[in-house]
């Protein structure tokens, strides 16, 4: 009899948990991890951005200096130079990815023999590690034996430009690699949008003798626009953070011709170990990314409202 009581007791306890308690139990580990790994560092680094602090000087506690880090950064012409460079990079690479990705999606919307294979092959760059891609393209760009110059018409080795060694070309070299890598991502999202457009819209337009251009402008583009904008939003945020490709290809050089803001942030945080200042810079980047993202979200809502 006693044995039966001890056996049934835990079952009673389990039954006494409410649905909400069970939900909390399931969610708690994730919440704890999020707080420890994301929320706490987020707010702690905000605090550090108002201090003079170096993480490698444990005996020197963070000293509150108010807005001095922000003031210093925002008055440093070099930072603005790197922001301008990053802006140019982001606009160019995202615009090219949107155009090429959308174009590829239009091409692959029509089923043809081998279209599945072609789609898979186009998607391969997304699946590769950026570090591997950096090393890979370094060889491709090599003016002595790389294939890139050969493909653009320089058949004699060493007669073409040194893409990674010339300041005027180095940023373009990185843009080309980023576009090659991420246009398939834009294509993928656009393709799913294109395939969701009902055929009857085109059939109705055809009956009204609408031109292909009119159909594209009034049916295809508006229907795909929300997904295209989401792709652009993702790619813009990612492009602002571009680090690995730069380090793999140019290391920020020659000089500082490819010193994007994320690369500069890395140097501030992990070469100079100016933790307070680098936290402030990270927050400046955060504010800019939020502002840009907000513009996209507003555009997206306007498009959805029109629909």
């Amino acid at each position: 009899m006693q044995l039966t009581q001890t056996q049934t007791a835990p079952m009673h306890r389990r039954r006494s948990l409410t649905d909400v308690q069970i939900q909390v139990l399931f969610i708690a580990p994730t919440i704890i991890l999020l707080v420890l790994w994301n929320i706490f560092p987020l707010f702690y680094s905000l605090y550090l951005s108002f201090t003079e602090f170096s993480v490698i000087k444990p005996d020197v506690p963070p000293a509150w200096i108010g807005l001095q880090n922000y003031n210093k950064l925002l008055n440093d012409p070099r930072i603005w130079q790197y922001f301008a460079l990053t802006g140019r990079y982001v606009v160019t690479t995202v615009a090219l990815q949107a155009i090429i990705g959308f174009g590829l999606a239009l091409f692959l919307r029509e089923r043809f023999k081998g279209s599945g294979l072609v789609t898979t092959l186009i998607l391969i760059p997304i699946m590769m590690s950026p570090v591997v891609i950096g090393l890979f393209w370094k060889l491709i760009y090599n003016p002595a034996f790389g294939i890139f110059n050969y493909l653009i018409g320089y058949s004699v080795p060493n007669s073409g430009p040194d893409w990674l060694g010339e300041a005027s070309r180095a940023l373009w070299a990185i843009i080309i690699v980023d576009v090659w890598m991420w246009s398939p991502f834009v294509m993928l999202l656009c393709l799913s949008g294109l395939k969701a457009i009902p055929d009857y819209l085109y059939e109705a337009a055809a009956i009204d003798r609408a031109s292909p251009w009119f159909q594209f402008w009034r049916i295809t583009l508006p229907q795909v626009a929300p997904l295209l904008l989401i792709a652009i939003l993702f790619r813009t945020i990612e492009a602002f953070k571009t680090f690995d490709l730069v380090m793999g290809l140019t290391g920020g050089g020659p000089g500082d011709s490819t010193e994007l803001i994320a690369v500069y942030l890395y140097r501030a945080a992990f070469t100079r170990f100016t933790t307070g200042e680098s936290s402030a810079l990270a927050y400046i980047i955060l504010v800019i990314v939020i502002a840009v993202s907000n513009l996209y979200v507003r555009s997206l809502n306007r498009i959805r409202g029109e629909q």
Partner: protein
Amino acid sequence: MTRKLGLLTLGLTAALIAGCAAPATPAAPAAPAAPAEQPTAAPAAPAGGVTELTIWWAEWDPANYLQELANDYEKEKGIKVNVVQEPWGTYYNKVSAEWAAKGTGYDMVVGDSQWLGQAATQGHYLDLTDFMKEKGLDKTVTPATLLYYGTYDGKYWAFPTEGDALGWAYRKDLFEDPAEKEAFKAKYGYELGVPKDLLQLRDIAEFFTRPEKNLYGIAVYTQKDYDAITMGAQNFIFNFGADWKNDKFEVEGVLNTEPAVKALELYRELYTKFMPPGLSNAFFQEMNDAFISGQVAMITNYFAFFPALVNPQTNPNYYDKVGFFATPPGPGGAQFASLGGQGISVNAYISPERQQAAKDFIEWFASKPVQEKWAALGGYTCNIEVLNSDTFKKATPYNPAFAETMNFVKDFWNIPEFGDLLVVSQRELSKYIVEGQGTAKEALDNIAREHTEILKRAGYLK
């Protein structure tokens, strides 16, 4: 939908800042090591009850050699020594995180010479001055290695362990070819051979530059990522008679001088005229690759990377046609070589018993028989007697040049602010040498100005 997208945006940006911001919490100290197995032999009882020691080092062959020595130490003394290796790219981050936590994850660390100032002034390393003097360890290594691998502010903080510096490799088959020698003498008026100074180095680089045959004269460091272009160019700055600073830490008028201008102009000339194209961001791997592919007649590299050049597996075409020489002096006779390599230090945060056990290990490691074995395994000893021995010099083709170089190594800044100073030199040297922006004088003026500002902020200059 607006709300959801807003949240999505916020989440993504939060991830961005979490990724970009510096680490907010120091890494926790490594877990205590597992108890050592009892040695089967009957070595002397471990001092202070310490049965296991941990050494941190970067992940490369010398760390494996050190582990082999450590196994001998366990057999002799009964104390197990583990050499824990970390990839080079994250090694400094790992050690600095441990410093930030005042951690006891390691007992000894084989650290870069540039870390000395930071580790000494911030209390991470144990002061080894009395210990090294009392045991006579300071007399066993070359003065230059003791100064740069072990000394900061007049005190010893590390025992020179793995000597390394920039040296040069050259194609003996080209240099010793009678037709090449004749043509060279006809053009330059002196015998082709190992360059006697940096101006001869330039002539030889020019002579062997034949783009139509995909052969170039030279390859030097140009990488901007960490410290490569600074290490490469400072060889020339030092040997032309300039320096980063004087004894009072003054930079203006010491660095931005005519000899340094000449040095940088020569370095840029080597890069633009006599180096294979495509090496605009080149470090040790690119140097060896250029040599192994037969593209260049000479390369500079750290001695630690020369074994690959004499290995038939990694250099099948030229492994038996490679010679080595020390960095030649400048036109005025000054001769230095950029320092690589590391010294072994003791963690200041471990218990006195463990510190004593670590010192005992260093004393054992510094003894001549162990240093001889260290060199035989492939470690680059700094021990004077071993370096000067015929056995060492005949052991590999690069050892004579290495032994010679260990007498005139010289380092970049090693004060705690070296990271700040390095970022400036890397940027400005890359701008002038690789990008071709401005003049050598402007690059040096910019470095001198910014270095002076950093030194003033840090209190070294008024």
